[in-house]
C-alpha cells in the first residue's frame, strides 16, 4: 500500500476517535457556554469501566455497550446537582467546577483500578490485519473509523432531523430566546451534557486497545479535543467533524514528515486561528 494512503487512513482513524470526544465537548460548550474540563475524565471513566466489563464478560462488544451507561449516570448527577445550581453565576464558575471534578474522577479511577497502564483487547474477530491495495491495515482500526462515521451520521440525523435536535440548535443559537419561546432549557442542557459524556465514555472504550487505559489519559486526550473545537468552531457539530479530521491528519502527517516541529506547529495554528477567527472555522461567532 502506498505510504500516503496508509498515513491518510491512520489520520482518519485518529480523527474518528477525536470526533467522538470533541462532538460532545463542542455541543456542551455551544449550549452551556462551558468548557467542560472533566470531559477527558468521562473518556477515562468509560475506558476503565469498559476494561472491567471486558475482563468480566470476555466481550469487547458488551464493554462498548455497557461502559457509557455508568459514565452517563455520573454525568447526569454532576449536571443536576452541581452545575445546575450555578447556571445563574458566571460561566467561569462552572468551568472551575468541572476542573474540580476532574481531580475527583482521577482519584476515583486510581482507587478502583490503580495507577497501572492497562489495555483492552480488541474483539477476536478484529484482531488481524486486512490485506488490501497491496498492503496491510489492522482491521480494528478500520472498525474504529466505522464507529466514528456511524456516530457522526447518527448525531447529524438527531441534530438536523429531529425535534430534540431542533431544540439543541435553537439553544446553541440563542439560549435566552429559546427559553423565551418555551423550551425547557435545563432539561436540554442536562440531556446534552449526559449524552456528550456517554459519547466520551464510548470513545474511551473504543480507544482502549490503541491508546491503553491509564490514569492520566484524560488530560492527554482533552488537549487535542480542545484543539479540534478551536479549529472547527465551538458549538458546531460540523465544526467538530471537520476539525477532527484536520487535526487527525495534521497529527499523523506531522509525526511522519515533520517530527521535529509537528507539535509546535499545531499550537501555532491553534493560536493563529484563535486570533484571526475566535469562533473557529464553523463557529457561531
Amino acid at each position, binding site marked *: 500500500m502506498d*505510504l500516503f494512503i*496508509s*498515513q491518510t487512513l*491512520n489520520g482518519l*482513524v*485518529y480523527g474518528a476517535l477525536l470526533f467522538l470526544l470533541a462532538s460532545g465537548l463542542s455541543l456542551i460548550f455551544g449550549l452551556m457556554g462551558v468548557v467542560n474540563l472533566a470531559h477527558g475524565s468521562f473518556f477515562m471513566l468509560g475506558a476503565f469501566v469498559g476494561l472491567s466489563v471486558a475482563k468480566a464478560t470476555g466481550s469487547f462488544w458488551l464493554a462498548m455497550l455497557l461502559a457509557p451507561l455508568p459514565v452517563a449516570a455520573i454525568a447526569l448527577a454532576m449536571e443536576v446537582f452541581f452545575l445546575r445550581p450555578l447556571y445563574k453565576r458566571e460561566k467561569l464558575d462552572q468551568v472551575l467546577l468541572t476542573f474540580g471534578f476532574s481531580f475527583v474522577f482521577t482519584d476515583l479511577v486510581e482507587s478502583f483500578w*490503580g*495507577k*497501572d*497502564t492497562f*489495555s483492552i483487547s480488541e474483539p477476536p474477530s478484529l484482531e488481524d*490485519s486486512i*490485506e488490501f491495495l497491496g*498492503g*496491510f*491495515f*489492522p482491521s*480494528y*482500526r478500520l472498525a474504529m473509523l466505522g464507529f466514528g462515521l456511524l456516530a457522526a451520521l447518527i448525531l447529524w440525523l438527531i441534530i438536523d432531523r429531529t425535534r430534540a435536535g431542533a431544540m439543541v440548535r435553537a439553544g446553541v443559537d440563542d439560549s435566552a430566546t429559546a427559553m423565551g419561546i418555551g423550551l425547557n432549557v435545563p432539561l436540554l442542557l442536562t440531556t446534552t451534557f449526559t449524552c456528550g459524556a456517554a459519547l466520551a465514555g464510548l470513545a474511551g472504550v473504543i480507544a482502549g486497545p*490503541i*491508546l*491503553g487505559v*491509564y*490514569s*492520566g489519559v484524560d488530560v*492527554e486526550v482533552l488537549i487535542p479535543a480542545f484543539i479540534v473545537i478551536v479549529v472547527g468552531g465551538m458549538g458546531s457539530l460540523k465544526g467538530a467533524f471537520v476539525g477532527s479530521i484536520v487535526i487527525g491528519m495534521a*497529527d*499523523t*502527517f506531522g*509525526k*511522519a514528515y515533520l*517530527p521535529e516541529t509537528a*507539535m509546535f506547529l499545531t499550537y501555532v495554528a491553534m493560536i493563529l486561528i484563535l486570533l484571526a477567527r475566535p469562533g473557529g472555522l464553523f463557529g457561531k461567532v
Partner: protein
Amino acid sequence: MTDASSFKPSRRSLIAGAGAAAALTFDAQLARVLAQGTGPIRIGVLNTFTKMAALFGETTMRGIEVYLEEHGGKIAGRPVEIIKEDDEFNPQVALQKLRKLVESDKVHVVLGPLGSHIATAMAGYMKQMGTPWIITGAGATALTKERIPNMYRATLTNWQVANPMGTWASANGVKESIVIASDFLAGHDVAEAFKETFEKGGGKVVKEIFSPVNTNDFSAYVSDIRATPAQAVYGFFTGSEAGRFVKQFQQFGLKGKMKLMGFQSMLDADTFPLQGAAAVGGLSTSIYCETLDTPENKHFVEMHAKKSKELPGIFTESGYTTMRIVDDAAQAVGGKIEDAAAFCIAIGKTNIMAPRGPVSFDPLTHQAIQNVYVREVVEQDGRLVNKVISVVPNVGDNPLNKV
C-alpha cells in the same frame, strides 16, 4: 501493590507512628537512637510505580522482596525496613520524595531510580548528601562519568547493552536498519550506542525516529518504517510503550517483513504479557536472561516462582542482586551500615556470582562489569521466554567514561 508479606513497605506505619509533626521537628534525638547500628536497616526505594513505567517499579520491588523473603527479612543480622516512594517518572516529584527519604526518613541507602532523567536530577543532591546510592534501573551512560563516590550502578548502562547489538547485527547480515526510540535521554543514548558499532561493522542506519515520550499510537511511525527498504528495526522502548510498539509492529504487517531488534527493555519477560505472540522472534541484548542455565539463576527463578507466575525480568533480577550487594557490603562492615564511607567502599569490593552471571564494579566509574547476552524470544511450554544465542563476557563501562 504486590503480594503482602511480613516486611511489606511500611511507609504508612512509619509516618503514622512517628507522627507527621515529629517527622518534621526535633528528630535529632531520634537520629541518635537510630545511629547506634542496632535498629532496623532503612532502605529507601525510589522508583516509578505509576504511569507507563509502573510495571518496572513493581518488578524491581518484587526482586527486593524475593531476596528479603529468602533471608528472613534480615540483612547482616538486622531487620530491614523498606520505605518505598513513587517518583511518578517526574524529576521534580522525585526530588521531593528523595528529600523525604534522605532527610526525614533518614534511610541508610537509596535504591533506584528507573528513569535516567530522574537519576540525572538526583545526582547533584546525592553527591551533596553522601547517602549511599545504588542505581537499579537508570542506564544513562554519562551517569558513571560523574565520579560520585557514594553512587554505584548495579545494572546496565545504555552503552553497555546497545553497543553489542550493533556489532551482532552487522555481523549477522543486517545491512540497513531503522532506529526508533523514545525521545528522551536514554533513547538518544541507546540509538547512538547501537549506531556506533552497527555502522563500524558496515551497516547503515537509514532512518532515525524519536517518538514523544509516552506515545500511545505508533501507526504513523510503523507505516513510515514499512515504506523503507531496511531489513531491520532497532527499537528502544520501555514499559507499556514497548508493549504497544511491538504489537502495532505486527498489526501493520511488519513482522516477518523485517527483523525486530531492541534494547533489553523492549523484549523482556516484563513486557511479554502486553505483547503476546507479536514478540516471538524478536532479538534483544541484555545483562540478564531468565532462561540462563546456571545454578544461581535456577535458584533465583525458583525463589521468584513463589511470588509470581511470570518469569523474572531484568528489573526483578536487578532488585534481587542489588539487595545481595547491600547485604554483602553490610556484612563486610559488621552490620554498621551507618558508616556510609566504609559501607560504600565495601560495595565497591563486590565480586559475586549473581543470577545474571559475574558482577563486580569498575573501581573508577562504579559501573557494574557483567556479561551481555544476545537473546531471541521463543515460545516454550506455552509461554514466551528469551533464549541466549550469544554471550559477550564481562562488558565494562564505556571507555569514554574513564577519561
